[in-house]
C-alpha cells in the first residue's frame, strides 16, 4: 500500500500518528481527549469541546470563524463524542482540501491547523474564563440536543439499552452527560474542567490525507511542548459483567413501530473472533438474522448485530410490529442457538471471512478510516496491528472458534420501545 503511517509520543500521554497517501485530496487533523468520566465530567468535557469548536481568540465569534474556514475552500471544524471501552473520547478535528487545489496558491492545511490549535489552546476568554454569553448559548443547545435524542428512535433505543447494559459501570455514563449535571455547571467550573482535560486526558492526534505533513507536525508539537501534564493511563478493555438474570426495560412512546434492542455478553476478548461471529450472525445480508428474521419470516426491515468487543457486548437491534415482538425475539434466540450447535456451512464461514477482508482492504482508501483504525488498535487494543495483519488473522479463524463465540454469548438486557396504548411485551 502506498500509505505511510508514523507514530510518535510528543509528551506524557500525548501521541501523534500521521498517515500520508498522495491519492487523497483532503486532509484531516483530529485531536481526541480520552478520559474515564462520570456524568459531570462527561457533561463538562462535551460542553467544553463544543465551546472550543465555535471560536478562538483571533476569530472571536462563530460567524467570524466559520467565514474564515469557508474562505479556506470550505474547511470545517467538527466536534463529537464517542465511547472507547470504559472511556469517552472527546473529538475536535479539522478537515480541508489539499493545498494543490488552491486557486490562488494560498496555504490551506497549515492555516486550518493553526486555527484548530488556536481553538484548543487559545480560546476566546473574558476575565480569564470562557465568554459567559457564548457559554450559556452552547450549554442551552447541548441540553436541547440531549432532549432531542428521541427524534432518532433507533439511536435513542440503543442509547437507552446501553444505559441498562452498563449499569454501574463507567461505560454506562451517557455520551454528553445528562441534562441535570449540565444545568448545574457554571462557566467558571467548565473552564477549570477545560484546564483539567488538557492536563490529564490521554491525547491522541491523527493527521491524515494527501498533504505534506512536516510543517503541520512541527506546528502541533510546538503547541503541546509547554503544556503541563499529569497523566495516568487507563485500561480500555474491561468486560462488562453479566447480570444474574436478563434485565427487561419497556418504554412507551407514540410510535407505530416497536424498537427492540437485545444485548448479549461474552467473556471472550478476541476482537476478530467476535467480529467474524457477529458478521455471520447478523452483520451481512447473507447472515442468519437477515436471511431468517427478515427474508424468511418478514418480521423486520432491519435486524442487525453489532459488537463492542472491548466491553464484550453484542447488540441486536430491530424494528418490529408490536404483535410480532415475541416471535422476533424467539427467532433471534433460536438462530443464536443454532450457531452454537454448529448449524452453519463452511461456505457461510468463508463468505464472512471474504466480506471481512474486503472491508479491511477498503480502509486503505479513506484517510479518516485509517486514522480511526489506528486509533482503535494502538490506543484501545495496545497493538501495532495493520488492516493487513487483521486479514491474516481472519483467515485463520476456525469453525470451532465461531461455535465457541456463539456459546459464550448470554442474554443480558432486552429493551423495548412500544406504542402508547400497547404497553411493553414480556
Amino acid at each position, binding site marked *: 500500500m502506498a500509505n505511510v503511517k508514523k507514530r510518535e509520543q510528543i509528551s506524557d500521554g500525548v501521541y501523534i500518528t500521521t498517515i500520508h497517501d498522495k491519492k*487523497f*485530496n483532503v486532509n484531516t487533523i483530529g485531536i481526541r481527549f480520552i478520559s474515564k468520566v462520570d456524568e459531570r465530567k462527561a457533561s463538562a468535557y462535551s460542553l467544553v469541546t463544543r465551546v472550543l469548536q465555535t471560536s478562538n481568540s483571533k476569530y472571536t465569534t462563530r460567524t467570524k470563524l466559520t467565514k474564515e474556514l469557508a474562505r479556506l475552500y470550505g474547511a470545517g471544524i467538527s466536534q463529537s463524542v464517542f465511547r472507547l471501552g470504559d472511556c469517552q473520547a472527546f473529538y475536535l478535528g479539522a478537515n480541508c482540501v489539499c493545498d494543490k487545489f488552491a486557486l490562488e496558491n494560498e496555504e490551506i492545511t497549515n492555516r486550518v491547523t493553526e486555527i484548530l490549535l488556536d481553538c484548543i489552546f487559545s480560546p476566546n476568554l473574558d476575565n480569564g474564563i470562557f465568554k459567559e454569553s457564548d457559554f450559556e448559548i452552547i450549554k442551552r443547545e447541548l441540553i436541547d440536543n440531549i432532549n432531542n435524542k428521541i427524534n432518532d428512535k433507533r439511536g435513542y433505543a440503543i442509547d437507552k439499552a446501553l444505559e441498562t447494559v452498563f449499569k454501574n459501570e463507567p461505560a454506562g455514563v451517557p455520551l454528553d452527560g445528562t441534562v441535570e449535571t449540565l444545568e448545574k455547571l457554571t462557566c467558571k467550573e467548565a473552564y477549570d474542567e477545560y484546564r483539567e482535560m488538557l492536563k490529564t486526558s490521554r491525547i491522541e492526534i491523527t493527521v491524515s490525507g494527501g498533504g505534506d505533513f512536516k510543517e503541520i507536525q512541527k506546528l502541533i508539537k510546538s503547541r503541546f511542548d509547554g503544556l503541563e501534564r499529569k497523566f495516568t493511563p487507563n485500561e480500555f478493555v474491561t468486560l462488562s459483567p453479566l447480570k444474574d438474570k436478563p434485565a427487561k426495560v419497556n418504554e412507551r412512546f407514540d*410510535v407505530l413501530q416497536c424498537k427492540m434492542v437485545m444485548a448479549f455478553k461474552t467473556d471472550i476478548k478476541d476482537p476478530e473472533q467476535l467480529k467474524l461471529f457477529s458478521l455471520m450472525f447478523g452483520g451481512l445480508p447473507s447472515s442468519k438474522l437477515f436471511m431468517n428474521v427478515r427474508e424468511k419470516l418478514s418480521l423486520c426491515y*432491519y435486524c442487525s448485530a453489532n459488537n463492542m468487543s472491548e466491553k464484550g457486548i453484542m447488540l441486536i437491534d430491530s424494528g418490529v410490529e408490536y404483535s410480532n415482538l415475541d416471535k422476533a425475539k424467539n427467532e433471534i434466540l433460536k438462530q443464536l442457538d443454532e450457531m452454537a450447535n454448529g448449524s452453519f456451512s463452511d461456505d457461510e464461514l468463508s463468505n464472512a471471512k*471474504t466480506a471481512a477482508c*474486503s*472491508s479491511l482492504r477498503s480502509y486503505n482508501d479513506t484517510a479518516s478510516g485509517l486514522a480511526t483504525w489506528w486509533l482503535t488498535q494502538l490506543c484501545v487494543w495496545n497493538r501495532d496491528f495493520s488492516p493487513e495483519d487483521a486479514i491474516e488473522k481472519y483467515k485463520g479463524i476456525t469453525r470451532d472458534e465461531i461455535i465457541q463465540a456463539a456459546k459464550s454469548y448470554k442474554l443480558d438486557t432486552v429493551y423495548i420501545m412500544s406504542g402508547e396504548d400497547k404497553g411493553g411485551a414480556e
Partner: protein
Amino acid sequence: MSIEKETIKSERLGESYYKIKHPSGLNILVWEMPEFSSVYALFGTKYGSINTKFKTKNDKDFIEVPEGIAHFLEHKLFENEDCDVFELYAKTGASGNAYTSFDQTAYLFSCTENYKESLKILLDFVQAPYFTQETVDKEQGIIGQEIRMCEDTPWRQVFFNLLRCLYVNHPVKIEIAGTVESIAKINADLLYSCYNTFYNLNNMALAIAGNIRLDEVLEICDKHLKVKDNPELEIAFPDEPEEVNEEMHIQKMAVGTPLFAIGYKSVPFDGKERVKKELEASILLNLICGSTSELYKQLYDEGLINSNFYTEVDSGDGFFACVFSGESKSPQEVFKRIKGEIERIKAEGIDSDLFEIIKKAEYGKLISGLNSAEKCATLMFESDLLIGVDAFENIESLAEITEKDILECIDILFDNKKTAISIVESNS
C-alpha cells in the same frame, strides 16, 4: 460490436474518465483509479417514485400504477429464480445494496477483490426479473415495516409534509416507498409491466470507478448486456401550478424541540441549466441563511435555531425547491425572518465578499466530493442518467457563476409568494 468511446476530462482537476455509448443502448461510465484498492459500481434506471404514469409504443393509453411500486420492484429484483442475489455476492466478498429515490433506482456493489465476478452478478440479476405472487406477498411485510419506520422518523415526516405543501399534483409529494395501502395493490403482473417499461438499457446507465480496467469492464458488458427492443417510453406528469398547495402544515409526534422545513418552489430546469441553477440556489441559500450569514448569527444568538440547521436544493423532472430546515422553539419566527432577509437582499443586493467566500466553499465541497470510488461513480452515474451532463459540469459551471447571475435568479428561486413551512411538534 463497434463502440463509441469518449474521454471526459477536467483540466481544472487533472482528472478524467471514459464515457462509452454501448451498442446495446447503455451508457457506460468508467473511472480508472489505479492507486485505490476499492471498486464501486452502480447499474440503474431512470425510474423512481415520481414515475407513476407512463406508456410505451405498445400501449394505447397511459397506464397508472400504485404509489411505491418502483421501490417495491427494487426489493424484488434481488430475488432470482433459483437464489438470492446476496448469496452470490457473499461468494465474491462484495457488499451489495440498492436505493430508490424520486427519479432513479440504482443497484450497487463495493468490493476490493473479484470485481469482475461481482460486475457479472450485478449485470445479470438486474436483467433477469423473477416475480411470483408468493414472493410479492412476503415482501409486503418487510416493506410495510420500512414504511412504519419512516412514519416514525420526524425529519422524514417534516420533509415530505413540506413537499405536500409545495406541490399540488406533482408525484414528488408521495412517499418513495408508498403507503401500506398502496403497496397492497401491487402484484407480480404490475411489477413485470413496470420492469419491461423502465428497465431498458436505453433508459439506464452503468458507472464503475476504482481499481478497474476499461477493457475488462467492456469485455464483461459485451457478454452480459442483453439487447432489447427500445419501448420508446413516454412519461406523463400532471400539470403543476406555479403556486403552492398550502402554506403551512403542522404534525404532532414524539419529538423534543419542534422541527421545521421551509421551502421555496420554483419552475423546474433541465440539463446544464439545472446544474447551474442548483449551484446558484445553493449559493443563495448560504447568502440568505448559511452558517456564514448575518441572519444565521442573529437567529442562533437569539436561540431561534441551533447548529442542526441545514440548507438543500431538491430538483428533478418537473420540480425544483430550495429548503431550509432545522429545530426551533419558534419556527414561524424563523420563517418570518427568512422572508424578510430575502426581501432585504432583493432590495439591497448581495455582500460581494461573502459571495466570493461561499463560492470558494462550494468549490472545496465539489473537490471533497471526488475523494473515493463511491463518490466518483455516483457523480458520473447521476450526472449522466438524471441530468444528461458530464460529471465535471458542476465544477465548470461554478467557476463561471457571477454576482450578476445570482441577482438575476433570486426572484425566480426565492419568491415569498411561493413558499411554505412544515412543522413537526411534540404531542405531549
